C-alpha cells in the first residue's frame, strides 16, 4: 500500500479546511449548516467528483484530458435528442448508451496518444473543439428544452433513496469503485506505476501506452455518464453546456494532491478537492457574495493549493550521511543489522 504520513497529512489538512470553510459560512448564514444545505452542496458537486475520478487516472499516467466537458456536452445532447424523439426508451438504456458513447470519444483520445504518439494536451485540445462542434452539427444550434424531455428522463437523478438523491448515490458508487480499483486491483496500480516511472514500469512488463489508453477510455466513460446527468439535472441541452468545466475538473484533482508529473494522487484527495471547490461555489451565493467573485476565488484557490502541494511534495534529497537516514524499521533486535565498527 502506498499510504505514507505525508499524504495522509495533506488530505487531513484539506478536509480540515473544508470543515472550517463550512463553519465560517455557517457563522454568517446559520442555515448553511442544515442537512438540506450540506446535502444539496454535495449533490451539486456530484458531477465534478465523478469527472475528477476519471481525470485523476489520466493525470496519474502523465497525460491530461481537456475534452471532458465537450465529451459531456456531446453525449448529453445525443441522449437528450433521443429522449425527445423517442420518449419510450428506458432511462437505464440511455445511461448505458451515454457511457458507451463517452468511452468511444475517450478511446479516440487514447488512440492518438498511444498509437500515433501525439501529446495528450494537443490531442485533447483538438478533440475539445471537434466534439463541441459536433454538438452544433447534430442539433443545428437548437436547444433541447425541458418540455421536450420525458418526465422519467428529468426525474431519474432527482429521485431520493434514503434521503439522498440518486445523483449523489451515483457519485458515491463511482468513488467507491475507483477506490477499490486503485487500491486492490492490479489494473488500478498500473496507473501509478506507468505514470510514476514509465521506464521502470516498462521493465516490469507494463505497456505504458496501453495504460494511458485505458485511462482515457474511463475518463470518457465517466464524462458520458455526466453527460446524461447534466442535461437531466439542468433539464436542457445546448452547444455550450459545461463550457470551461474541464478546467474545474483539473483544478479539483490538483487541489486534491494529484501531481501533474504523474504517479501521485489518491481517490480521497480528488474527492476532497472537488468538495472544496463545490463548497466554495455553493457558499458564495449563500453568504451574499456576488457570483462575479466566484471565478477569481476559484483561481486564487487553485494557485494557493498548487503551491501548498508543491511544497509538500518536495523530495527530501539524496540521503547519504548516516545520521540523516530514514525508513528504518523497528525490527527484531536479535537480527544482526549491518554492523558498523
Amino acid at each position: 500500500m502506498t499510504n505514507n504520513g505525508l499524504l495522509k497529512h495533506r488530505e487531513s489538512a484539506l478536509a480540515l479546511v473544508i470543515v472550517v470553510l463550512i463553519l465560517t459560512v455557517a457563522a454568517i448564514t446559520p442555515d448553511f449548516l442544515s442537512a438540506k444545505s450540506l446535502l444539496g452542496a454535495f449533490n451539486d458537486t456530484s458531477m465534478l467528483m465523478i469527472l475528477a475520478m476519471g481525470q485523476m487516472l489520466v493525470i496519474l499516467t502523465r497525460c491530461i484530458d481537456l475534452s471532458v466537458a465537450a465529451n459531456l456536452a456531446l453525449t448529453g445532447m445525443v441522449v437528450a435528442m433521443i429522449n425527445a424523439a423517442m420518449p419510450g426508451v428506458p432511462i437505464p438504456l440511455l445511461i448505458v448508451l451515454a457511457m458507451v458513447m463517452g468511452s468511444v470519444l475517450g478511446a479516440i483520445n487514447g488512440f492518438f496518444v498511444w498509437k500515433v504518439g501525439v501529446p495528450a494536451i494537443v490531442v485533447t485540445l483538438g478533440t475539445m473543439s471537434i466534439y463541441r462542434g459536433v454538438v452544433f452539427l447534430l442539433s443545428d444550434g437548437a436547444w433541447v428544452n425541458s418540455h421536450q424531455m420525458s418526465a422519467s428522463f428529468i426525474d431519474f437523478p432527482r429521485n431520493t433513496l434514503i434521503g439522498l438523491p440518486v445523483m449523489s448515490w451515483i457519485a458515491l458508487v463511482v468513488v467507491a469503485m475507483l477506490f477499490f480499483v486503485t487500491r486492490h486491483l492490479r489494473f488500478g496500480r498500473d496507473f501509478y506505476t506507468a505514470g510514476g516511472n514509465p521506464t521502470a514500469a516498462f521493465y516490469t512488463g507494463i505497456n505504458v501506452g496501453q495504460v494511458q489508453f485505458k485511462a482515457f477510455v474511463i475518463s470518457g466513460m465517466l464524462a458520458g455518464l455526466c453527460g446524461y446527468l447534466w442535461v437531466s439535472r439542468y433539464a436542457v441541452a445546448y452547444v455550450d453546456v459545461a463550457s470551461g468545466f474541464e478546467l474545474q475538473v483539473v483544478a479539483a484533482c490538483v487541489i486534491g494532491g494529484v501531481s501533474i508529473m504523474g504517479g501521485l494522487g489518491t481517490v480521497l484527495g480528488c474527492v476532497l478537492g472537488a468538495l472544496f471547490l463545490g463548497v466554495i461555489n455553493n457558499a458564495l451565493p449563500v453568504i451574499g457574495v456576488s457570483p462575479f467573485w466566484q471565478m477569481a476565488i476559484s483561481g486564487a484557490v487553485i494557485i494557493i493549493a498548487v503551491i501548498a502541494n508543491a511544497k509538500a511534495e518536495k523530495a527530501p534529497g539524496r540521503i547519504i550521511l548516516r545520521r540523516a537516514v530514514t525508513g528504518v524499521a523497528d525490527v527484531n533486535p536479535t537480527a544482526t543489522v549491518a554492523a558498523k565498527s
Partner: protein
Amino acid sequence: MEQQDAVFSLRDVTKTFPGVKALDRVKLDLYPGEVTALIGENGAGKSTLVKTLTGIYQPDAGSIYFQSKPIIIGNPEDARQLGITAIHQETVLFDDLSVTENIFAGNYISKGFFKQLDWAAMRQRTREILLEIEAPLDHDALLRGLSIGQKHMVAIARALSCDAHVVILDEPTAALSHHEIQELYAIVNRLKAAGKAIMFITHKFDEIFAIADRYVVYRDGAFVGEGMISNVNEQTLVEMMVARSMTEPFPKVEATIGEPVLSVRDFNHPTEFADINFTVRAGEILGFYGLVGSGRTEIMQALYGLSKAATGDVEIMGQSVHLKSPADAIAAGLVYVPEERQQQGAIVDLPIYQNISLPQLNKLNPFGFLREAGEYDLARSYGERLQVKASSWSQPVNNLSGGNQQKVVIAKWLATQPKVIVMDEPTKGIDIGSKAAVHRFMSELVQEGLAVILVSSELPEVMGMADRIIVMHEGLIVGELDRNKATAERIVGLATGGIAA
C-alpha cells in the same frame, strides 16, 4: 564439478548502434547453480549485454537459447516470463511507492475471484525477505526517503521475490559496505544452492575470486575468453581484459605545483555531507575516491552552486566567493564536467559547435547577436585540440560516440579558460582510446597551471593520475593520502568504512 548443460546461451549475438558496435558476435553460457563473472573494461559491452538479456534491446543478429531451445526475448515481459531477472547499477524503481509495492510491482500476489491484490500477504512476504537479507527496512517506507544502499537492498529483495532461473547482478556492490557485501555473497550462495544461474558483473578482482565459479571476458564488444576461475589468476584475466601490458597505463607527467587555487572550509549539507575541508593547488590533480553514493558528486555539485542547503567557506585564487549558481561558478573560474554526460554534460540534440559556445555566449557576442562563424572557430580550435572525431561541427552531439561526447564537454569548459576543472567520473562508459586521451589531456592541463579535481570510482585511474587522494565514506572525508603513500588496500579499506588511515 559435474558438467551440466548451460541453462542459458548466447551465440554470435551482435548489437550495433549508430557509430559503435556494442556487441560483436558474442558468446555466453550460464550454468544452473553456478556464478559466472562477466569481466570487461568500460565500453566492453557489459551493460548492452544485460539489456539484451532483459529484453530492452533486441539483438541485430545471433541466437539466444534457453534450456537448449532457441528463444526471442522481445521485451522485458518476455524476460520476466523466462525467469530472467536483473539488478541494475542504477536502481530502476518507483520513488513514490512503498518498499512492498516496489518488490511486487508487476508481480503481485492476488486472491479471490476478482484477483484482488493481497496486500497482507505481500507485506508479510516483504518482511520475510527483508529479514532474510537482513535489511532493516520498513515495508511501508516510501522509496524516496531511502539511501542508495537501501534502494539496492530493495532491488535485491525484488529479485528474490520472483521465481528466477537466471539472476543478473550488474555491479551490485558499488554502494555497499564491507558487511553488506558479505551478506550479498551469502544471498548469492543461497541462490546457487537453489539451482539458479547467476551472472555477476564486476571489475573488482577480489569479488571475482571470492564468489565466481566461471568467468567470461569481453573486450570492445567482443568475446575474448571463458573458463573456470580455479584455472586462472588475476594477471591472466587482466591481460585478457586489456590486451596490453599494464606497466604504464597512465600518462602521468609531473607538473609544478603552485599556489592554492581552490580552498574549501567547513563545507556542510544537512543530509549529504559534513565537515568537508580541502585545498587544490595549481598544477595539481586531486583525486576523490569512494563508493558510489559516498557524497563526492554532491560536494562538487554544491561547490558548483547547485545546492541551496550547503553552507561553508569557499575561496578561489584567494578570493572568497559565494557561488549560488553554475553561472557564478563559471565566472569565478570553477567549471564542472558532470557524471551524467547526456543529461547534465551536454545538450545532445544541439550541434557540437552550439554546445561548445553555450557558456560563453555573452563573451563571444557582447551585443547579443549570434555570429556562427565565431562559434565554428571556437569549436574547431578546441575540438581539434581534443581530437574530437565527428563528421562536421554541426553534427548533433547525440550522434557521437561516448568518448567523443565527453571530449566535446571538456572542450566546452576549456574554452572558458577556467582555473579549476572538476571532472566527475570522466571516463565512465567510454572506450579505451578516448579514456587514454582524456587522461593525457588532464596531464597537459595541469602542466599549463590548471587545478584538476578528479572524482572517480576506478581505483587504477585515481592511483595513476592523482597527486593526492581524498577518500570519502558516507558523506565524510575519511582519509587524505599522498600519491606515494597510497596503496590500494588502504584506499579501499577507508572507502568501505573499515580501518582509519
